[in-house]
């Protein structure tokens, strides 16, 4: 197991990027990153070498984000979007509309996804983790990872096609 200094030097960049995309706020991402390193350091004896250090750190970070999100949801500060109804369908016109959307709109829409779908999408498309690694990070079966990614992409598409998310 690496020292705290090595952990930070080698892993803070991807960890910060993951947390920033999960939360959409620099200060919060920074705070959660520090907490992730602190927890990793405290739980160093529980680290299993079969998982990479990066995967292990991502799983601690994902748990922290999930705990925070649940706490906020319980207090009613941030409502879960599981029941949000969005327009469905897949037409050529929609495909054309998507081509005109900027990446900033994607960045704004990502934090609106349900947390499990968001984590799976970010780990897959921004950090190149395999389905198996994502399953390890999110502590769920590989089949669940596949369905979260599929549903996440579909929901993101519908979110982007809503007027308020599409950049002017």
């Amino acid at each position, binding site marked *: 197991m690496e020292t*705290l*200094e090595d952990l*930070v*030097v080698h892993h*803070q*960049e991807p*960890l*910060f*990027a993951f947390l*920033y*995309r999960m939360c959409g706020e*620099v200060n919060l991402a*920074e705070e959660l*990153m*520090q*907490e992730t*390193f*602190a927890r990793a*350091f*405290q739980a160093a004896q529980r680290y299993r070498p079969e998982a990479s250090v990066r995967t292990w750190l991502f799983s601690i970070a994902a748990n922290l984000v999930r705990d925070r999100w649940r706490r906020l949801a319980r207090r009613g500060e941030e409502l879960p979007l599981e029941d949000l109804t969005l327009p469905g369908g897949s037409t050529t016109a929609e*495909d054309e509309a*998507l*081509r005109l*959307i900027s*990446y*900033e*709109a*994607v*960045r704004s829409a*990502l934090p609106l996804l349900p947390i499990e779908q968001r984590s799976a*999408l970010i780990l897959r*498309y*921004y950090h190149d983790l395999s389905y198996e690694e994502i399953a390890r990070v999110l502590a769920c079966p590989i089949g669940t990872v596949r369905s979260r990614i599929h549903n996440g*992409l*579909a929901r*993101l*598409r519908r979110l*982007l096609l809503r007027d308020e998310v599409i950049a002017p």
Partner: protein
Amino acid sequence: MKEIEGLLQRDREAGVPQPPEARYTIAAVNRRLGRIPSDQPAQTKDDRLPVSVALCLALVALLYFGLTTWLLATLLLAALCTVPILLRKGA
């Protein structure tokens, strides 16, 4: 879904803000862990007390009694007091 995957790719290529410097993060994590880095020892009130008392006794012995044996004994006591402090700090 290819369009969405393309958008995610573009967002990825656009990058994200940089994290703070590593030393800043390390210091912040150390604070969370309640650890004091060995290169920045900070004396607590508890650490300073025995050293100060021993030095005062040494000065009193020198000024009022002029006895070198007292002086040596108190300096030895002061030195002994600092040993566990230095060991704890890893200095």
